[in-house]
């Protein structure tokens, strides 16, 4: 399985600001995913990030609020823009393994918006 790291691991931010979360993988992967896990909730897919193309967003998530970059096959960023306390969540990135069926997850970024 791939080794995935995320930065920052946690942050406390003021409302109205933006935070960019980085996801780094130790091998080249085709598909990367960004999830949100709100307090006490399950995981919700925000978007799928493919290298060389625009990210594909799920219903309820828009590019203006969650812009995503995927400059190469080992790296992606998710920005949480104009944050409000409702954005306080764990944000996780994941990648598809070599068999293209199994997702492996990073350790997550714990965000608190005051």
């Amino acid at each position, binding site marked *: 399985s791939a080794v995935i790291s995320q930065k920052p691991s946690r942050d406390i931010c003021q409302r109205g600001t933006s935070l960019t979360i980085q996801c780094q993988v130790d091998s080249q992967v085709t598909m990367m995913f960004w999830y949100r896990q709100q307090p006490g909730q*399950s*995981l919700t897919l925000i978007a799928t990030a493919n290298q060389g193309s625009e990210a594909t967003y799920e219903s309820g998530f828009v590019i203006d609020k969650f812009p995503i970059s995927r400059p190469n096959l080992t790296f992606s960023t998710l920005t949480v823009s104009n944050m409000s306390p409702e954005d306080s969540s764990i944000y996780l990135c994941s990648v598809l393994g070599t068999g293209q*069926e199994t*997702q492996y997850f990073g350790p997550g970024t714990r965000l608190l918006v005051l």
Partner: protein
Amino acid sequence: AQSVTQPDIHITVSEGASLELRCNYSYGATPYLFWYVQSPGQGLQLLLKYFSGDTLVQGIKGFEAEFKRSQSSFNLRKPSVHWSDAAEYFCAVGWTYKYIFGTGTRLKVLA
């Protein structure tokens, strides 16, 4: 619509006792099936997965799961729970690369 149900929000077991966590899904065909564990402050770790073949699959940390097509279930089991198993457990179903996660079961282990 596709859905995943984990009917038990919280489960408490004594250390050394057996464990079964339930997962049911709704879909027209057999999807890929997964169990993940999330320890406090950690990301998700894959415990095991089922794609096809033998309906009893073995995973890491002594866990196993059984796929029952007739019941649309994929329950997770462990014969003897250790204190370090205290965590949140998520069942997920996938179709190609799209996953739907259950709401999770939080496991508490009593010493």
